[in-house]
């Protein structure tokens, strides 16, 4: 059976990218749509009420002052499209929250859950009766609080830490967690723990060679895992006017792929490292990400008779 898969990752809360992901199903005539990790936003932008009908926000390196109504709605839309969460509050509320980490966490959790509910609803409305299989998986950046929302959907499937059979009879092994990062994100494991998790999942795969490995973090030392080198203060290291790039992928993911030689590897995590690389017979993909600019990077893969017939990177 011929199957067309569309894979994207790292939308990081961008409304516009998520809507594009859903629209890709129809435009690209997709059988299976996979969103492979890092769904939620990284920033909350306080939109602070000043006076009666004016609001102020710091966004895109400038301070916006807008009126209630159309101007405010436009600003909220721009913030959402960039992957950030706008939060309307008054000055007193802002002063109280800014120095209280537990309140900031609460805001993030509330915003993440609220947006995820909106997305699930949107997906159910748009993809209903289209016959597409839609898999949406959290990544290392996503708090576990959103899992419940994804699990509650009748249409969307959260494949994280599962082995599932998708259209065409292909088995798909999925893992959204990553190896350690400098930011200590919510779903990180040591290489040893990651390998144990992957080995445990592998026990449920009947035929690894025709399987799809949907693993958020890319394999180590490939074209897919090059990221800027950071110093202790998380500054990018430059030499001779150029950024120093280093490999930051997972060694255990590489070992598992090299040993089991699945049909394809679907990865994200490193936005700068769009690419395709062969590890033995396995084609590993990372579409990269430009969620901040509202572009959905993805990869279309046509599978035919148990093989990869062709692929195409997209910039929707």
């Amino acid at each position, binding site marked *: 059976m011929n199957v067309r898969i569309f894979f994207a990752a790292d939308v990081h809360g961008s409304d516009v990218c998520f809507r*594009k992901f859903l629209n890709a199903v129809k435009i690209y005539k997709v059988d299976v749509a996979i969103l492979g990790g890092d769904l939620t936003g990284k920033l909350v932008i306080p939109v602070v009420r000043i006076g009666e009908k004016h609001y102020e926000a710091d966004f895109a390196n400038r301070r916006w002052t807008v009126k209630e109504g159309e101007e405010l709605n436009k600003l909220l839309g721009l913030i959402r499209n960039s992957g950030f969460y706008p939060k309307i509050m008054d000055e007193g509320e802002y002063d109280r929250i800014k120095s209280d980490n537990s309140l900031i966490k609460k805001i993030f959790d509330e915003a993440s859950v609220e947006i995820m509910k909106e997305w699930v609803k949107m997906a159910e409305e748009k993809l209903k009766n289209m016959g597409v299989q839609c898999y949406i998986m959290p990544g290392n950046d996503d708090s576990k609080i959103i899992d419940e929302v994804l699990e509650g959907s009748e249409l969307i499937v959260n494949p994280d830490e599962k082995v599932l059979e998708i259209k065409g009879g292909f088995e798909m092994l999925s893992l959204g967690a990553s190896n350690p990062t400098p930011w200590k994100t919510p779903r990180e494991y040591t290489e040893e723990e990651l390998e144990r998790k992957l080995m445990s999942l592998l026990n449920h795969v009947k035929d690894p060679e025709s399987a799809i490995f949907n693993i958020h973090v890319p394999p180590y030392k490939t074209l897919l895992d090059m990221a800027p080198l950071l110093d202790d203060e998380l500054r990018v290291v430059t030499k001779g006017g150029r950024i120093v790039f280093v490999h930051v992928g997972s060694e255990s993911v590489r070992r598992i792929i090299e040993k089991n030689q699945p049909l394809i590897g679907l990865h994200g995590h490193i936005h700068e490292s769009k690419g*395709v690389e062969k590890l033995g017979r396995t084609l590993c993909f990372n579409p990269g990400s430009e969620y901040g600019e509202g572009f959905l990077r993805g990869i279309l893969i046509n599978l035919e008779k148990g093989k990869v017939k062709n692929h195409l990177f997209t910039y929707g």
Partner: protein
Amino acid sequence: MSGKEKEKVFLREATGLVREANWVDILIFAALNMSVGLSAWWLFLWGPYIAPGGNLYIGVLITLIMMIFGGLAWAFLASIVPRSGGEYVFNSRILHPILGLMSSWGWMVANFAWMGVLTAYIFDPGLTTTFHLVGMSEAAEFVVSPIGLIIGGTIVIIISVVIAILGLKAFRVFQIICFALGVIMFFAIWALFLAYSKADFINAWNNVAANYGSADYHTLMQQTSQYLESTYGIKAPVYQSWNVMGALPLLPVAGWGLIYPYLATYIAGETKRVERSMLLGIIGSLVFCAIAWWITTALLERIVGYDFLVATSYAYGDGLKCYALPFAPSYFGFAIMMAPTWLKWLIGIGFVAWVLYYFLYSVFPGARILLAWSFDRLAPAALGDVSERFHTPVKASIFIGVLGMIAVVWYALAPAYLASYIAMIPQIATCFMLTSIAAMIVPFRKKMRSVYEGSPVSKYKIGPIPLITISGIIYFILLATLLYYFITNPLYGGWNTTSLIVAAIAYITCVIYYISVKYYRKKKEGIDISLAFKELPPE
């Protein structure tokens, strides 16, 4: 969790929140791509020839001002689409996929020509001038012979491709060494021009001229004056005038260097406060280049005389008998004539260094473009292979090297058929002009509007008009002016059958190639490559 005081935002722990490259990095990258030392030779040789009396300060200033807007156009586009990797992607998105391809295609065609021309500049005027002036005449003659150019060119290409394959670390070391040697050359020349007098220069010139049976300083001035008056009706000696109109024909000459800081936008994705860094870096590099040229202009006027620059450029350019030196007149050659032997080598090597790393600048982005085309199924998959050993696109780098060899051999055997301006025409007409149009229209493109409005660029306006639009318009006017001069003024030698063929190759082959590849991929592989850039509806 952390809250930032100055900016009212709340952050959480998530990947990618980093502090990145700053404006100094951008400035260095942009300045290197303008190759300040090589462009200076071009300016002081062909400026007085094409526009005798045209004020070099004003010509550079006008180009600088207009190109600052060009720099803004590139910087703003890079700010709106910071992970673009250059013009290929943002022109594809803002204009049309085929126009995005065309802009990088034009770049490749232009750089095919550049690879031949630039390699030749290492040997002539670089090495041949130095060898002659240190008394190594046989070596000087060999390096400019066809076989010398081919052998020398092959060595340069092999070195460049090997460095490209070894990766960024080797590239950085090579680049820093070349840049340092080039900057030292400028300081050495300025020191010499300050330390010696005009009489010292005349004496040095006369000694060198006597060795080759060429006219001495005053005879050359006298004979060229007669020639200029009888042939062109120009009354000599010619001095720089302060007439602005007279300086306009200098725009293409100054533009030969100043229109090239754009390459810095390729690292926009890793730049901290990208709009500020790009603005400071690109504009800073332009100003840096212009200042270096202005200092050299002032010192050349003092030590050599502008009238002598005009005389030597015509004597050399028109092949007058009074100029019998076997190498082109050059600002660095004038300095070498007065320098002690060790300094002669330092200056000569410094000039070569300005050209040597420039070749590598063709290999690196060229291999990246082939890699991008390969990802988008526009080029064979093999060109997208990345070596497991070196982690670089080895096959694409070698492919560019082979193209470079063809260009070198072509130039060595038929140098009349490739010239610098011929290389500039397709680059201006495709890559740069398309980018200027993209800058003009990006705020008004429906599909880009939210991206534009959500970017910091949207805050820059003059009245109701976005600054990026104004920048695109002024940049387009500059590019159109350059093309106008190429077409209407035969002195540039850029508009002829060959240049038309090269420009046609840039356009027609691109369209044919795109259509053919699209047909092939659809028919044989069942995939529609136009989907790659198809805009997904955001509703």
